């Protein structure tokens, strides 16, 4: 039976009632990066540990993908392509994460606005599973 699967293991906690993005934090200088990796690009330490990232942040910049990306590598539906938003969200006091946005409406996006983490279907895989990825959405204030 078809089910929901994560786009990549280790990118976020999954399955989970409250999924979080998984970054890593340098144990020497404190720098946080995403996704997890060994080695700190700021201080060159090799002592990093996994860290669950916050779910809120500010929109740092954004654009709208207006044409279908080449496939591969894109796995989404190219035939029925709909533009999608892309941005960097500055997760409070942690790191800026590049992310899909839940809206592609330029009038709904503003640099500096508060954003929150969501999980959205990205595409259907060869086994018929719904592949889930992370995205950020404007917070309804």
């Amino acid at each position, binding site marked *: 039976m078809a089910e929901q699967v994560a786009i990549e293991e280790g*990118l976020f906690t999954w399955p989970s009632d409250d999924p979080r993005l998984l970054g890593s934090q340098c144990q020497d200088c404190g720098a946080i990066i995403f996704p997890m990796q060994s080695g700190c690009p700021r201080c060159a330490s090799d002592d990093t540990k996994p860290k669950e990232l916050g779910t809120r942040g500010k929109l740092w*910049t*954004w*654009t*709208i*993908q207006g044409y279908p990306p080449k496939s591969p590598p894109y796995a989404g539906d190219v035939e029925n392509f709909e533009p999608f938003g892309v941005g960097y969200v500055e997760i409070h006091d*942690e*790191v800026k994460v*590049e992310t899909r946005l839940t809206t592609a409406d330029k009038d709904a996006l503003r640099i500096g606005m508060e954003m929150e983490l969501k999980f959205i279907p990205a595409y259907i895989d060869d086994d018929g599973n719904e*592949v889930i990825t992370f995205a950020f959405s404007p917070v309804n204030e």
Partner: protein
Amino acid sequence: MSKPEVAIVGIGIHPFGRTPERTGQEQGVYAVRQALKDAGVEWSDVQFAFGGSQAAGAADTMVSKLGLTGLQFINVANGCATGGSALFSAYNTIASGAFELGLAVGYDKHERGAFRVNTRSSGLGDWYGKQGLALTTQFFGMKINRYMQNHDISHNTLAKVSAKAFRNAEHNPNAWRRQPISEEQILESDMLSYPLTKFMFCSPAEGGVALLLARADQAHKYTDTPVYLNAAVVRSRRWGSFEVMAPWLALEDGDGPTVDTSKAAFEMAGIGPDDIDLAQLQDTEAGAEIMHMAENGFCEHGDQERIIQQGETEIGGRFPVNTDGGCLANGEPVGASGLRQVYENVLQLRGSAGKRQVPNNPKVAYTHVYGAPGISGVTILSK
């Protein structure tokens, strides 16, 4: 200015754009033969070569067409800085005294449409491409979107940059897109990655460029119009910079590699931005030219709005930028792109750029490339 050790004594180019009847390598060979003729030397006189292409095969295979002379030929693969890296390597090979005459060559032939990114070879997970983030165009849209808000750059100024590129290219027989396009048409063309439209982006393309370098004190053996290489610098990114193909950015904002490369090049040449008479700056899209004017030290952030609106970057203006039409009108064959900029500056300094010649006898010229995953290359040339 520091005393130059290396000169460019021969230049060759294969027209940019699309040439279905020639492979990328054949376009490179064509450019090399032109450069040899320009310097009045034979292939057998060339002691070493650095060359590269991203999508058209290993450059050292050119020897099977140019001649099996046994020269030292080293392939260079460094993304958008491939040409700049070949030039840097050739520069140092001569400056070190190892050889006296050598070649920097680059060519390419890309498939149509936006660059297809291999996420694994870029050090990224498959998820990044699968969910539609592996597009260089998104980076450029996001960088200029933030820049326009922070520094009050208008959409019309973006359009002016593109319009200038196509207008300059009209007088460049080697350019790809040589039809002037109005600012209105540019603004109304398809929105590819907000705020950038179709005519604000360059396209991957084809072409080849070859440069022959010699010891500065021997340059007059080959040419009456040597152009000296006062600086050739390549740098990669540091913590805090905002780069193409980055799943994350540091919390702190910092300068990009262009700023570091530019400073190092000016230091190497012993001059400053005010001494430069014209520049070829990486214009992957219209916003890049605007941002790179400031990142290379030619103005303060935000001053571009006035400078461009007043026409100062036009060929007849105070500070001409991208006189051959840049990437916007020539397309971007990755291996050749940075060398095209140097080719154009050599023509301008020789005074042989024809209808697009910068007036008043320019003496010092600047080139700048930028590309994935956060690298930059700069040269400073003088006569």
